């Protein structure tokens, strides 16, 4: 449904999106994860053809994206990160306007259905200027679903919502997916899409770190043991030799503090302390850091540990 090939966007030499290769298959609920500033919105805008890529290609619904290809755009629904409305319109007028644009049959019945589904039935005659952020988000959802799109592209759709609304929207996404719609949803929180998505891509600083099934990603994220080590001396000099150790996935050094991410096949603590000793360091403390899935996700994105390369290595 969506494929990007070496998609790249530079803003004045700064690479917001860097050689991105994504592939979203029909029927997926595909999570697009990354911290703020990772390049998610930029990628989505390129997929929609609203900002031109510096290089690379986008295929949307099987066709290479051409400017102003409205026939393809009629088949997708979009909820953007920020909501923009004609403030002087009511919800009903707004949806009727878009219904006409997309040539939705039985538009008034469809509007009733959707306002009911997103819980805005009682606010249908309110001016949009008076809508709260959450209500705007839900209305954008109704707008995106109005024309029964095959593909839904959602940029942080639940970012402004309270827990009840999040559940409402999540149920709605699942329901739409069951009806055969493909969903591409971005988020900066893993927990937000954890139960929703079957497949995920993780990006940071414009680069793809991983693309896999949710289960595999979860396994891989919790598949790493994080060790906090205090050494007898400044450990900066260790960098190169540490990265050569086969059981080390990644590490950070700060003075005499060392954080090492280890593989989990077996207990590597002994190997690690022996290595450090041989390099002339004494281990003062060594402790395992307990991490939730979310923490693991944050660590992995902050430190740019390439799960992707590792995944390919294992395969």
């Amino acid at each position, binding site marked *: 449904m969506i494929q990007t090939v070496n998609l790249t966007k530079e803003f004045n030499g700064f690479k917001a999106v860097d050689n991105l290769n994504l592939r979203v298959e029909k029927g997926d609920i595909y999570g697009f994860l990354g911290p703020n500033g990772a390049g998610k919105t930029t990628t989505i805008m390129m997929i929609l053809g609203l900002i031109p890529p510096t290089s690379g290609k986008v295929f949307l619904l099987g066709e290479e994206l051409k400017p102003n290809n*409205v026939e393809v*755009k009629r088949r997708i629904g*979009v909820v953007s990160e920020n909501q*923009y409305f004609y403030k002087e319109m009511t919800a009903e007028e707004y949806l009727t306007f878009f219904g006409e644009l997309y040539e939705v049959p039985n538009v008034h019945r469809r509007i009733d259905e959707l306002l009911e589904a997103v819980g805005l039935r009682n606010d249908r005659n309110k001016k949009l200027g008076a809508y709260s952020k959450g209500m705007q988000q839900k209305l954008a959802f109704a707008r995106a679903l109005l024309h029964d799109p095959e593909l839904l592209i959602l940029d942080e759709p639940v970012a402004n919502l309270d827990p009840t609304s999040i559940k409402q929207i999540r149920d709605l996404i699942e329901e739409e997916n069951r009806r055969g719609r493909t969903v591409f949803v971005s988020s900066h929180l893993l927990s937000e899409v954890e139960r929703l998505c079957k497949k995920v891509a993780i990006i940071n600083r414009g680069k793809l770190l991983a693309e896999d099934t949710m289960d595999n990603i979860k396994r891989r994220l919790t598949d790493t043991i994080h060790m906090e080590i205090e050494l007898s001396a400044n450990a900066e000099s260790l960098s190169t030799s540490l990265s050569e150790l086969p059981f080390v996935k990644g590490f950070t050094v700060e003075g005499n503090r060392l954080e090492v991410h280890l593989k989990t096949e077996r207990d590597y603590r002994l190997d690690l302390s022996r290595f450090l000793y041989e390099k002339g360091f004494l281990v003062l403390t060594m402790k395992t850091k307990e991490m939730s899935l979310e923490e693991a996700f944050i660590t992995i994105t902050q430190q740019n540990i390439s799960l992707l390369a590792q995944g390919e290595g294992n395969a």
Partner: protein
Amino acid sequence: MRTFRVMKTLFKRDFLYSLYSLGYYVAIFASFFVSSFILKNFLDSIGEEDILVSAYPLNYPLYITLVIISLYLVILSGISISREREQGTLEVLFYGPVTPGSFLWGKYLKDLCLGMVALGFTAVYFYLVSLFTNLGFTLGLVKALIMSVFLLSCVVSFGLFISSLTGRIRSSVLALVAILGAFLAIQLGYNALLGFEKESLSVPMLYVRQAMSYVFRGISWISPFAYLSRGLDSVVLENPFLYVVNIGYAVVYSLVFMFLSVYVMNKKGVKA
């Protein structure tokens, strides 16, 4: 076919909401107020001299009315795209079946229709004037009103072009004021230089005057207000050929500026 439906939908929403805006009526009635003032002076002078000085007594007030309506329209169309860019509503339209072409022609139609409604009010106003004075609602006035539709079209397409170039309301307004101000300044400067005898000007000033005449001629093809005066002049000159030619010019001008706008919007994109 579908593109037309998209255009129609965009037009309808926009037009209805613009009709509800107060500024529109303020502009129209301000223009009538100024014309009434001019007419009153005119009638007073007839009263004193007891002679009719013009065969088209209502055309000058009409010209002033049109200039005021045009100023309103050029600002309105001048911010119409940049406003939607700035507020982000443009982006949302382009998630769907809207293209720069359908969007711009929708805006063009909307602004032109607002102009035509204003011309309708103007016709009623001048009809009332003709009832209360002995100045007739002549065929010349009807011709001038028809010509005005095409002249307003120039104004609108020029405004849209400026708007397609700018990303924010403020920059559109600044651009419009700067460009129209420059046109006016050059015209006034040129007229001032023309006022001098050729012999009284130094050689460098003669070159300046020559250069300005070229610039002036250029502007008279670019500025929509130049089309406005030329168009209305052609009515007074009672030259049917010139009348038709001026309508032709206005149509070509509008098309050129609309195509330029579509091109710019394709290049510039929909984000602020």
